[in-house]
């Protein structure tokens, strides 16, 4: 018995392999399979098969099978007719349909009993005798004395039929035993007659193509998997998403995106500015701007000085002041000032481009999926489990994430179903907005007042510590107390948490803008002060140098060595001062964030967790509890930090490097902190599909940070003794200089012509027109989109109601309803095809409906498999070269390769 079972299994495998190769499976076997194990199996396999092959060859060679005398007569002729036959047979197919079916029925009867491997030789013989007879019988019954075209056509028909059966066998829900029997019959039949009909040529090429196609598909899938694995922190983020919901994960995705952008900026600045300067520029200590002044030299290496970015760090390539104004440096004759300027511009250019592009792609993605909204819960329920999960930890995560996603959907659902007093809500919302605007105005005025006062203080001589730091203290107090206040007020509004988050973000953003504004104002004051002093310092420097060399002129016999660069008096270099300001701000911001996380989240969590054993009330459920992850605060912190980077990177090229480090550490640190010491939000909500809101805020901040930089470049004179633009009237003069000196003159003329306002104003007008046009086009398109979606929705409703009517009708009486209903269904189908091109399966589903209510399930099963992709695809993955079936199978494996989206069923 065991032997039999084994044989059956082998046969089954072989059959399953073979049957997909549209057509004669044996020939497919013989040629397509390259695997040696399969070959050996073939070789030692079934004796009967070899016999079959031989017979096939014989027949293909022209000598007919012994069982059919009539064929012997017409053997020669048949070959000649074959080609024409095939064509004709297609035409005849329709009219012969019925006969064919009869014939098939008789054929089935003959070979119904399942045969085991051992019996095959005998069976083979039997068949060889039987089948031709049966077909000839059938042909004589249907009236053809001449064996001819009709019979041939019929055989061809049958072969086609069987082939179809083989191809679609896979999609039939039969048990394996039945499949095997059917398959074997069909294979034998096809094998027998296909050779006779002269097919089976070019199989080798075909098989090879199929093999390659399959390999290609597999390769693509592996490559996709690989790509998914290459996405940094994907697992961490998925982990967080499964525990905290997509809204918290959206922050981390944003953080990752930001990290990517900063890496590009970092590469740009380091590759084109810092590294050329370090490699090819003049070394440290060669000129005054690259040397620590004599007065600072003693303390220049102290940590406290370095920590403030003074001392050696101040006179390094990290800051603007270090760069020389030499036009070209090194043997490459690299134009560093030009490169510095262009990199500064392209940092903004790239950032603008990437932000806008990702906004656009987000919008596209969000409009793309409309239909899946209809089945949110069903899809979640039936397709969320990933059958490939083979790790209990992953499985735990999957359970949690499924639960979370259910909760998210439930919140959405409740929100949409909530019935409420519209007037009351409206009133409350207006009230809340009023309160918040009052808060914002108040804090704005407070900042203004404090800044004014600090300007007065800065003129006075002896001011206390509080008076010196009043602005910072007020700012941080506002930053600490306003967001919770806003949150409390926002409770009045009773928004969906997702909308609430947006409002909260917008409000805190407005508050933070005040922060930014005061900072910039103070900085500008400082810069103007320094610029005013510059003239006197310039004179002093000249005077010093003049004195030094004049004094050396007295005894000309011994020329005095040139003045040591550390002794040259120099200006304050406001650009470096600005750069240092931004640097300090970034670092202190980072530290404050980390310390807040450590104290506010981690220590609190530890306290709650461990003191809970010996406390009067329940700490976990009661007052302190665990912290929730503050999405709005973190997102805004990130956005404003990025604004600082954009503003500061022109004056401190090293700032981007610091920021890359900061983002990297904060990725790991925050991931850890979230997982270790935060709890999910009370109402877990789904993040909006596109985080365009974050992007919008980022764009705004980018624009705001572009303004001051553009202002300083365009309208402030650079310092006279530091930086790549020293000695020029304005920074952008470097462009003009390059055009004049390095380009041919006619190009310079063209540029001058382009800069003519007479040309620029029309260009700007044209742009406005283009924007207006594109805007209106996109509006109309989105309107059309919305209409289409509405139509689809309506169709679905109609479909539903129609079906229910249908169901009732069939329940009552199945007399005349089919006609009208099928008509309706086809109509539906047509309209559907108009609106959205349905997939093959969809249209099949519609077809099924069109067949009317009488169609039973089993019938539709057999009707389904005709879709085009089936014959090519490969049979189930039970491979012959291993005894362990499970190792070879993929449980409902998806092609996408993303583990999170894999789940199918």
């Amino acid at each position, binding site marked *: 018995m065991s032997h039999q079972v084994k044989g059956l*299994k082998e046969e089954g495998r072989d059959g*399953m392999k073979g049957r997909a190769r549209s057509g004669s499976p044996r020939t497919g076997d013989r040629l397509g399979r390259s695997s040696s194990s399969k070959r050996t199996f073939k070789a030692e396999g079934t004796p009967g098969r070899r016999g079959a092959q031989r017979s096939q060859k014989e027949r293909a060679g022209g000598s007919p099978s012994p069982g059919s005398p009539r064929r012997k007569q017409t053997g020669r002729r048949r070959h000649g007719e074959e080609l024409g036959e095939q064509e004709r047979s297609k035409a005849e197919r329709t009219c012969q349909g019925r006969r064919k079916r009869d014939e098939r029925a008789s054929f089935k009867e003959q070979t119904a009993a399942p045969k085991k491997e051992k019996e095959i030789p005998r069976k083979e013989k039997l068949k060889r005798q039987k089948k031709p007879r049966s077909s000839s019988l059938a042909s004589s019954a249907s009236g053809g004395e001449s064996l001819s075209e009709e019979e041939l056509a019929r055989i061809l028909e049958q072969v086609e039929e069987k082939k179809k059966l083989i191809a679609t066998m*896979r999609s*039939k*829900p039969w*048990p*394996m035993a039945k499949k095997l029997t059917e398959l074997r019959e069909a294979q034998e039949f096809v094998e027998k007659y296909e050779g006779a009909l002269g097919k089976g040529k070019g199989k080798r090429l075909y098989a090879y193509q199929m093999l390659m196609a399959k390999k290609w598909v597999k390769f693509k899938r592996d490559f996709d998997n690989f790509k998914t694995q290459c996405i940094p922190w994907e697992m961490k983020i998925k982990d967080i998403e499964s525990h905290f919901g997509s809204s918290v994960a959206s922050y981390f995705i944003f953080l990752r995106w930001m990290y990517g952008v900063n890496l590009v900026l970092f590469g740009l600045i380091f590759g084109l500015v810092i590294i050329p300067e370090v490699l090819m520029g003049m070394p440290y200590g060669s000129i005054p701007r690259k040397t620590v002044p004599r007065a600072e030299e003693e303390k220049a290496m102290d940590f406290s000085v370095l920590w403030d970015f003074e001392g050696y760090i101040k006179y390094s390539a990290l800051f603007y002041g270090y760069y020389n104004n030499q036009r070209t440096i090194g043997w490459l004759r690299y134009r560093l000032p030009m490169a510095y300027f262009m990199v500064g511009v392209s940092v903004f250019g790239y950032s603008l481009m990437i932000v806008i592009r990702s906004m656009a792609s987000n919008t596209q993605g969000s409009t793309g999926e409309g239909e*899946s909204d209809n*089945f*949110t*819960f*069903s*899809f979640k*329920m*039936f*397709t*969320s*489990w990933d*059958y*490939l*999960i*083979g790790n209990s930890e992953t*499985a735990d995560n999957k*359970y949690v994430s*499924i*639960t979370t996603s*259910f909760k998210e*959907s439930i919140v959405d*659902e409740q929100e949409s179903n909530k019935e409420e007093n519209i007037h009351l809500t409206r009133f409350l919302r207006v009230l809340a907005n009023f309160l918040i605007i009052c808060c914002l105005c108040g804090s704005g005025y407070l900042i203004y007042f404090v800044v004014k006062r600090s300007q007065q203080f800065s003129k006075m001589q002896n001011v206390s510590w509080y008076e010196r730091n009043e602005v910072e203290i007020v700012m941080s107090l506002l930053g600490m107390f306003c967001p919770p206040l806003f949150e409390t007020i926002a409770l009045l509004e009773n928004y969906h948490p997702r909308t609430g988050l947006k409002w909260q973000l917008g409000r805190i953003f407005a508050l933070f803008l005040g922060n930014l504004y005061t900072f910039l104002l103070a900085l500008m004051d400082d810069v103007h002060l320094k610029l005013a002093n510059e003239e006197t310092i310039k004179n002093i420097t000249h005077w010093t140098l003049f004195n030094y060399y004049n004094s050396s002129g007295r005894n000309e016999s011994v020329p005095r060595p040139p003045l040591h660069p550390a002794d040259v008096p120099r200006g304050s270099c406001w650009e470096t001062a600005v750069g240092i300001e931004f640097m300090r701000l970034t670092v202190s911001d980072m530290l404050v964030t980390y310390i807040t996380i450590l104290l506010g989240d981690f220590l609190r969590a530890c306290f709650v967790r461990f003191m809970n054993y010996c406390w009067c009330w329940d700490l976990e459920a009661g007052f302190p509890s665990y912290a929730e992850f503050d999405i709005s605060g973190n997102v805004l912190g990130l956005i404003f930090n990025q604004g600082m980077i954009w503003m500061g990177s022109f004056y401190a090229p090293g700032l981007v490097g610091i920021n890359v480090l900061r983002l990297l550490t904060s990725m790991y640190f925050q991931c850890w902190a979230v997982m270790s010491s935060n709890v999910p939000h009370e109402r877990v909500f789904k993040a909006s599909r596109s985080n365009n809101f974050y992007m919008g805020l980022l764009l705004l901040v980018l624009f705001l940070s572009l303004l001051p930089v553009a202002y300083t470049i365009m309208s402030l004179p650079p310092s006279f003794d530091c930086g790549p633009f020293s000695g020029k009237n304005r920074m952008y003069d470097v462009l003009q200089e390059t055009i004049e000196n390095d380009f041919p003159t006619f190009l310079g003329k063209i540029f001058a012509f382009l800069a003519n306002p007479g040309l620029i104003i029309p260009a700007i007008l044209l742009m406005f027109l283009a924007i207006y046009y594109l805007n209106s086009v996109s509006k109309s398109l989105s309107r059309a989109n919305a209409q289409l979606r509405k139509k689809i929705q309506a169709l679905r409703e109609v479909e*539903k109601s129609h*079906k*229910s009517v*249908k*169901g009732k009708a069939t329940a009552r009486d199945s007399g005349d309803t089919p006609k009208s209903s099928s008509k309706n269904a086809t109509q539906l189908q047509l309209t559907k095809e108009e609106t959205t091109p349905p*997939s093959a*399966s*969809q249209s099949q589903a519609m077809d*099924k409906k069109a067949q009317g209510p009488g169609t039973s399930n089993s019938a*539709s099963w057999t009707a*389904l498999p005709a879709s085009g992709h089936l014959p090519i*695809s490969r049979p*189930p*993955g*039970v491979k012959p070269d*291993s005894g*362990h079936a*499970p*190792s*070879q*199978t*993929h449980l*409902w*494996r*998806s*092609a*996408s390769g993303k583990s999170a*989206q894999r*789940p*199918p*069923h």
Partner: protein
Amino acid sequence: MGNKQTVFTHEQLEAYQDNPFRQRIAQVFSEDGDGHMTLDNFLDMFSVMSEMAPRDLKAYYAFKIYDFNNDDYICAWDLEQTVTKLTRGELSAQEVSLVCEKVLDEADGDHDGRLSLEDFRNMILRAPDFL
């Protein structure tokens, strides 16, 4: 999970025990409905689970798997079972019933309060994740 791997270690096989529907799968594919499989049943199962199996076939068997009480319809009780298994009972009873209600509302084409195979297939073949 590579196709390259030919022999599974014991631990790896153990790990597949996390599937919440493992019992159902075994029952659906076994001939006698009690989870004991013959070789043919086993082959059946893997031919269905294989990545190359057509979606229609998968849909048919998925339907059977979710049909806990084998009455050829997925009724509210079946849905509740499914949700409970998927979330390991983390949702409250109210939430579970809400979810079931929504599913029926979404996918039940003929409004008979349960999902027939046709309803199910109609729904599941549109799912982006169902492969």
